[in-house]
């Protein structure tokens, strides 16, 4: 990577953004917590009954216990891994889908391929999000991945539209014309010559969708359409809806505060990325 490249410049601009760097450090901290959960270093005892009902905060139960005596701290820490799992799976898959379909639509703009993809985007936009997710969840009959599938199926549309617009601009550039004229196959042009030039959009979109997925998970879990097997901040908040009016706030606070920290930091990273990568953005 040369110092004058877009990425080199962006990296230096990002490094100067103190708020962005701080947010990145926070996200990295959360990620380490999640890695620890995946390797079983901590919080593996989240389903165990280690106390009695609604114990207050103590040295052995840092955030107290829930209604059946499970440790809330362990559950909240374990949920960090779930959040990363949902966020990463949805963001990566939806970005990839949006990139490929958006690029094909843009490259073949005006042909039936473009018409078809734009029609699919319009259809997905016209169905209200939560109805769609609920419908997918019930159509897949409670499959563990139905929530992920539904989010991926709707989230890619925004990225797809952006990439389509960018590719329409890029395909008229001279270097693409040059590739055409020496007989480079069209799929090679799309994947080797055009898509890499949209990666700054993809990076920002992926970070935006990561946040979107974590936030959607909470609401879907409350509606009974979320995580089936495991523990998540959404499930903890859902559990807390029955407790807060009785004056028991530990579940609610633990999940909300941890989730707010990650989402806030990720939002700040996404903003800093956008500032660093988009030369046209006025701030």
């Amino acid at each position, binding site marked *: 990577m040369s110092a004058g490249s877009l990425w080199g410049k962006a990296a230096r601009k990002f490094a100067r953004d103190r708020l962005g760097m701080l947010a990145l450090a926070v996200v990295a901290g959360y990620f380490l917590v999640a890695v620890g959960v995946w390797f079983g270093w901590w919080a593996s005892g989240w389903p165990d009954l280690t106390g009695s009902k609604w114990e207050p905060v103590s040295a052995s139960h840092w955030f107290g216990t829930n209604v059946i005596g499970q440790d809330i701290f362990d559950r909240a820490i374990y949920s960090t891994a779930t959040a990363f799992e949902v966020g990463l799976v949805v963001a990566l898959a939806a970005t990839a889908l949006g990139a490929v379909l958006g690029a094909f639509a843009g490259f073949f703009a005006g042909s039936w391929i473009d018409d078809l993809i734009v029609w699919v985007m319009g259809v997905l936009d016209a169905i209200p999000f939560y109805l769609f997710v609920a419908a997918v969840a019930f159509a897949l009959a409670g499959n563990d991945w139905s929530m992920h599938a539904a989010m991926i199926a709707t989230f890619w549309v925004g990225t797809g539209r952006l990439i389509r617009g960018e590719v329409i601009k890029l395909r008229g550039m001279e270097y693409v014309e040059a590739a055409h004229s020496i007989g480079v196959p069209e799929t090679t042009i799309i994947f080797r010559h055009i898509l890499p030039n949209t990666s700054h959009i993809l990076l920002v979109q992926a970070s935006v969708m990561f946040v979107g997925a974590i936030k959607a998970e909470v*609401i879907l879990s409350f509606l009974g359409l979320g995580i089936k097997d495991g523990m998540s901040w959404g499930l903890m908040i859902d559990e807390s*809806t029955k407790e807060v009016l009785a*004056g028991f706030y530990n579940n609610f606070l633990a999940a909300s505060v941890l989730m707010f920290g990650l989402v806030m930091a990720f939002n700040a990273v996404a903003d800093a990325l956008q500032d660093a990568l988009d030369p046209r953005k006025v701030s």
Partner: protein
Amino acid sequence: MELLQYSLRKLLGGIPLVIGVTLVSFALMVYFGPDQTYLLLGKNPTPEQILEVRQQLGYDQPFITRYLGFLREIVTLDFGAASTGEPVMDLLAKTMPVSLILILPGFILGHVVGLMMALAAAYWRGRWLDKLIMAIAVVGMSISFLIVIIGFQILLSSSDGLDLFPVRGWNASTFADYLTYVTVPTLATMFVAVGYETRFYRSILVEEMSRDHVRTARAFGLPESRIFVRNILKNCLIPIITRIMFSIPQVAIGGALLIESYFGIPGVGKATYEAIVTGDQPVLKAVVSLTAILFVLVVILTDILYRAVDPRVTLK
């Protein structure tokens, strides 16, 4: 005349979209959706009874026949009766106004407050007030809707908080009742919207404020208020119209779903969610197809509004 021609052409162009939406929703919600056979049968049904009910529901028909039947119902706006026996159109006529008066105050306030905060931020761009407002906006965007709802409920409706408003439920028989029940949902809706709206309005305002013609107008010594209304706000109308218009279908149905299920308010969102969970097909058909039609109408109306605010736009 030009307008009429244009609208008709656009309406025809919207047909593929309606077909797509109904096809996807038919496949997901009805064809692969929950099987209602055993809901309608008593305990220990005989195989003949099962067969009879499946025939009534049309489960023995091929996909395309059932889908065409679905389309016929949309064209004639005759969706039959919900599982409670109530005609679907009556159910919608009863629940739609509830959703509207529930969601509208929060929607409008979200836009108004967002616009005010964006104006202040854009006017003092780069100064501490701008930074403070934008920081508040990011904080607002980072809190989950559900957390906001629970938070306001604790603060305003619980015995640990101010205990001013009812915890849940709905009653709009008098204006005073309406106000007590609508306040907490409205505050939550507004709170969630403000972060996004502030960022949106600020970004378009900043873009328009830094245009050359604004600088020129200022150089000619035109009053600030006039520059703002004529040279800045007027040019911002197109993105604003787009944003408001395209949130209408979502606000009318999707947006109310969480609020309505949380507070137990009998609106369209709750009725639809219950219909999905129980597989009440007539309700689903009606809601999804009406949303799709609303979406197409919104697209057409948006284009016509563009024409009204920007003479450079032609209706082709």
